[in-house]
């Protein structure tokens, strides 16, 4: 590989393809589940399955997977989720149409005493609905995909997921019930609310979206005005499926902006934070940024160059309030392509030039930390790969290149309806 000579398009193709291959390698053909990470014994993550279902569509369009194979993968996955146990039992697969965050790769049952996760179920449903729109032929397998995707969506009881609160709850456990905290502040949950609001069967109270957006904070940081959220992934994930450019809800009309533009500003603030580098982390700069939810070196305190530094494991790192332990999320840099292509490309080329050991496989790890010395200038590097990172790379590069996912989801009636019920107007939404 010679990254410097690669055209932008060739470079993106290489990293997108490598990310896509994660889903080819990490899935179980008997039930369609996809491992959370490449680490031995990793369970399936339902959010990663959602990204996988959408990535198969990208794979077909890019010629990496036949339409028939992609449909077969989608079908086995949707059949599993439709037929798996839905009950309040602690080892079920799901309940009330939602699914547990982590499932056993073989049996598909709940593991790690994980929560019934509303947001991760939302990503799973987004993937199912993407496939439902894409596979639009009269072939029986594609018709089945459409029926199953729609049935899975209609089965979700969003009213129950409010748990008596004004907003949707974050999670539920059979042992202890709903988490006693909800969504506060801007987050990746936009797609969750859009899907919930459009439900023809169990739509939540119509004011739940307003209740959530009432917790938003519009901040001026480093002279950038934006809807604040610290970790970068928050500004990315819902955008993998929904084209927010030009459409505005009440909040964004008030601010004369939109969520697409907002993500671009979030990238700018991330870059400015890295340039200022208040904690003197090694490697940070205008082309080396990206504090997000990702794997880290583990919880420990070390003295480095005479100064005590605290490191964290998997954590939602964010700007400007931290935590900032010097760990960056390369996938978040690359997944920012649609919002600031020059910045994301410059970051990718920087990664390739400065940390060739880390990027030689063209697949990006969950985190790296040059401040914590390791083998090479990249310092500590997360072991293996994480499905969420690979999924958001596949989808966001594709949205940059062809807007495929955005175009598909514009055709999904539930997305349009949910956006309208949330008060969005303008651009493609009319």
């Amino acid at each position, binding site marked *: 590989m010679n990254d410097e000579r690669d055209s932008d398009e060739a470079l993106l193709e290489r990293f997108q393809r490598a990310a896509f291959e994660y889903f080819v390698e990490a899935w179980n053909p008997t039930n369609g589940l996809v491992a959370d990470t490449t680490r031995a014994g990793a369970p399936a993550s339902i959010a990663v399955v959602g990204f996988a279902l959408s990535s198969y569509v990208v794979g077909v369009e890019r010629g990496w997977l036949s339409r028939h194979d992609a449909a077969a993968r989608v079908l086995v996955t949707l059949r599993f989720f439709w037929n798996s146990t839905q009950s309040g039992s602690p080892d079920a697969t799901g309940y009330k149409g939602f699914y547990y965050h982590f499932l056993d790769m073989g049996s598909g049952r709940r593991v790690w005493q994980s929560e019934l996760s509303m947001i991760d179920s939302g990503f799973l449903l987004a993937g199912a609905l993407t496939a439902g729109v894409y596979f639009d032929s009269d072939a029986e397998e594609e018709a089945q995909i459409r029926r199953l995707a729609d049935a899975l969506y209609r089965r979700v009881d969003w009213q129950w997921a409010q748990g008596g609160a004004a907003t949707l709850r974050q999670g539920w456990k059979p042992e202890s019930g709903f988490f006693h905290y909800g969504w506060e502040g801007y987050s990746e949950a936009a797609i969750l609310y859009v899907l919930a609001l459009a439900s023809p069967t169990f739509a939540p109270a119509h004011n739940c979206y307003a209740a959530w957006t009432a917790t938003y904070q519009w901040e*001026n940081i480093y002279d950038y005005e934006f809807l604040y959220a610290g970790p970068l992934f928050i500004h990315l994930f819902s955008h993998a499926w929904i084209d927010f450019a030009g459409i505005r809800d009440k909040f964004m009309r008030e601010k004369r902006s939109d969520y697409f533009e907002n993500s671009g500003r979030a990238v700018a603030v991330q870059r400015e934070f890295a340039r*200022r580098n208040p904690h003197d982390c090694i490697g940070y700069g205008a082309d080396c940024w990206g504090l997000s939810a990702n794997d880290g070196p583990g919880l420990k305190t070390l003295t480095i160059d005479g100064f005590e530094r605290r490191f964290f494991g998997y954590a939602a790192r964010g700007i400007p309030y931290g935590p900032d332990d010097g760990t960056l999320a390369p996938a978040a840099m690359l997944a920012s392509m649609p919002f600031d292509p020059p910045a994301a490309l410059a970051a990718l080329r920087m990664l390739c030039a400065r940390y060739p050991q880390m990027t030689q496989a063209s697949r990006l790890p969950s985190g790296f930390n040059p401040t914590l010395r390791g083998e090479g200038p990249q310092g500590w590097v997360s072991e293996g790969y994480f499905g969420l990172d690979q999924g958001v790379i596949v989808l966001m590069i594709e949205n940059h290149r062809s807007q495929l996912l955005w175009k598909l989801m514009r055709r999904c009636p539930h997305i349009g309806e949910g956006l309208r019920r949330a008060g969005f107007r303008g651009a493609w939404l009319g």
Partner: protein
Amino acid sequence: MGHAEAPVGFEPGDPDSVELFANAHPPLWRNPPPRGTYDLVVLGGGPAGLLAARGAATLGRKVALIERNLLGGNCLNDGCVPSKALIRSAQLYARMREAQVLGVPQPRDVRIDVPETMRRIRHLQARLSRADSAQRLLTHGVDVYFGAARFAGPAAVSVAGATLRFKKALVATGSRPLVTAIAGLDAAGYWTNENVFKLSALPRRLLVIGGGPLGCELAQAFCRLGSHVIIAQDDPMFLPGEERDAAQILSDSLAHDGVEIHLNTQVVAVRKAGEQKVVDLVSDESGFSVSVDEILAGTGRTPNVEDLDLEAAQVEYDTTAGIHVNDFLRTTNARIYAAGDVCLEHRFAHMADASARLVLHNALMRGRRRLSALTVPWCTYTDPEIAHVGMYVREAREQAIPVETFTILMHDVDRAVTDGDEAGFLKIHVKDGTDQILGATIVARHAGEMINELTVAISAGIGLAELGRVIHAYPTQAEAIKMAADAYFLTRLKVASR
């Protein structure tokens, strides 16, 4: 009249105790005979009661003040004064351990001397008690009674065998620690702020129940003094209701100090096992136990409304919110007012002071001042401090007020950088499209000092643009306010250039 009841906690061998009690509750004090009908009888000699009594006397009114135990109230005796003195000592130990951050070698052989720290606290309390001594009040024209007060009717109070008749009365009996019912806690024993400052040795392991302001302050202080501190907080973040980012920085700071943090965690049972206290906790569905030497509980507050026979005075109250008052701080008995912790949501010494001023005007000067018109700042004295004034964004948005927040990171403020005080931020919330300051939150080492400028601005209706025209001394940490004003100015320039 006879002697008042003997004061609680008097230690004749300790000179600081002798001075404190000589000022705050003289052991040989004799209550004066009542001087007919008083213009004002004040129940409670804390910050609110003292201010009201002195103010009424200055107005030339006949005034009596009744205190059950020590003048100065919770603030002087087991609240702000001792806790801030302890926090200052603990902060210095922490600074010495991190001296290298400032380019200074860490001092060798730093030994923590808890008895000396406690002696200093007692001495400061004794010193500060001089300002409002019983004798000084008497000289000022206030009849001071020690004893338990009870209403003897709508216009009379009894104390230590005497009946005081009044035209107006003020109930300012304050609050006390609120201890959540936990199985086995009473039998195992626990500290509250009323006895934690009287300890003679540091507990090796301390469990703090509750992550409100007092719990967080003392958890950090004891950790810095050398205890292994575990803090259990039922909510997903510390300081519920405070800015989420502020609570996160506090959580990071406590963790940095070495506090063992358990959020979303309930304490369900306590039992003694030899000298240890074994505490059962539950987080989500998982249960676990910790063994500690001491437990600090009662970090919340409950109003002192019992034993006053408020029914006899036809004053409505409940044991949670305290005495019911209207916006003029008048109770359901038109002669009787209330101020401070016994009736207010914001249980701060400065609110006790402000509400007592309001009562003075309304009760004795035919005033119509409203509680709702007050601009109330507050501060949690952790390191960094967390201070707030005015509205939070969510409160503004609930009222359909659009908000823009101007944020300055302390790591961008020159003086904070030179002082090594970079953790924290300043957020000023303005009504979108205007410079009207709705509220502000500051997380900084000296946030409590910095918030006052913004309190003045909100109270006086000074906008952020005007604050930007005020010259701020450079370099100071309060320059963050100027920087926020500059950021606002830039947004106006952008609008103007469109």
